[in-house]
C-alpha cells in the first residue's frame, strides 16, 4: 500500500473528504483517504454533552495564529465523519445584528445584499 500509486490523496475523512472520495472513486479514480482519528461506528455515537466529547480532537492541537485566531476545536470532530459527527441539524434563526458584524464588531463582513 505504501508504494502503491494513486490518483488522489485526500486528507481528512469528514463530510467533504468522504464525499469527494466517493465521487472520485465512482469516476474510476484510485483514491486514498487519510484520517488520524478513530473509525467510528454508529453504535459508538452517544447523544450527550459530556460523552459526546469523545468525538473531539485528542491529538496535536490546531495551530491558531494570525491577528484574530479562531478557537476552531469547538467546531471540529475527530475521526471518520469529522465535524459532521456533532451535526445537530439545528439552525437557530439569525438575528438582525448577525448581518452587521463588520459595522458593529469590526469582524468579518456585513451582509452584502440589500
Amino acid at each position: 500500500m505504501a508504494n502503491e500509486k494513486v490518483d488522489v490523496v485526500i486528507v481528512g475523512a469528514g463530510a467533504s473528504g468522504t464525499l469527494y472520495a466517493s465521487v472520485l472513486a465512482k469516476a474510476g479514480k484510485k483514491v486514498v483517504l487519510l484520517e488520524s482519528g478513530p473509525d467510528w461506528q454508529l453504535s459508538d455515537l452517544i447523544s450527550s454533552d459530556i460523552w459526546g466529547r469523545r468525538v473531539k480532537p485528542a491529538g496535536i492541537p490546531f495551530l491558531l495564529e494570525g491577528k484574530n485566531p479562531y478557537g476552531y476545536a469547538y467546531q471540529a470532530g475527530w475521526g471518520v465523519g469529522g465535524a459532521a459527527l456533532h451535526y445537530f441539524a439545528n439552525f437557530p434563526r439569525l438575528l438582525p445584528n448577525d448581518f452587521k458584524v463588520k459595522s458593529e464588531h469590526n469582524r468579518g463582513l456585513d451582509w452584502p445584499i440589500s
Partner: protein
Amino acid sequence: MSEIERRALMKGAALSALAFTAGGVNVLLSPRQARAQNIPFKTLTPEQVETLEALGETLVPGAKQAGISHLVDQQLSIPPGEALLEARILNIRPPYANFYRAALGAVDKASRGQNGDRGLAQLNESERHAFVDLMRQNKVAGWQGPAGPFVYLVLRSDAVDVVYGTMDGYAGLGIPYMPHIAPEKRW
C-alpha cells in the same frame, strides 16, 4: 447487552459510571462514590489534589464532595482519545496531565507568594474568592504558568461537569433529566 441498551445506559448515566481501580479490580463508580470510597489517585499528587479541590470548590460549590479530584485524576489516567474533559474542546495538547500539573502548580505558587506561603487550600473562603477573582482577570502578580483566565475556564468547566453533569446535578437545578429516547432499532 444489546448496542441499543448499551447506548441508552451510557446516555442515562451522565458522569455516573467511570472506571476506577479499587484493590486491583476495575469498578464503575461516579466521582462522588470514588471520593467516598477513598479510591487511590493514579496521576495527581496529594498537593495537587488539595489545590484542585480548593479551586474547584471555590469555582462551583459542591465540587469537592462531588469528586472533582477523582474525576480529573481518572480522566488524566486514561488515553486522551477516551477522555471526556473540556480540555479536548479547548485545544490543549495531550497528555492533559501536563496542563493540569502546570495549572495547579501555578495556582499553588502564586497563592503562596501572595499569602505568606499559604496555598489555596489554606486560605479562608474570602481569600480564595479574592485570589480566583484576580486569576480570572489575569491580574495575579508573579503568575507563572498557563494564562490565569484559561486555567479558570478549564477548571470551572470540570467543576461544572462533576457537580451538574449528573442526574443528581440536574435534580439539584430542578431541571428534569431527559436523555434522548433510544431508537427502537439500528438505523
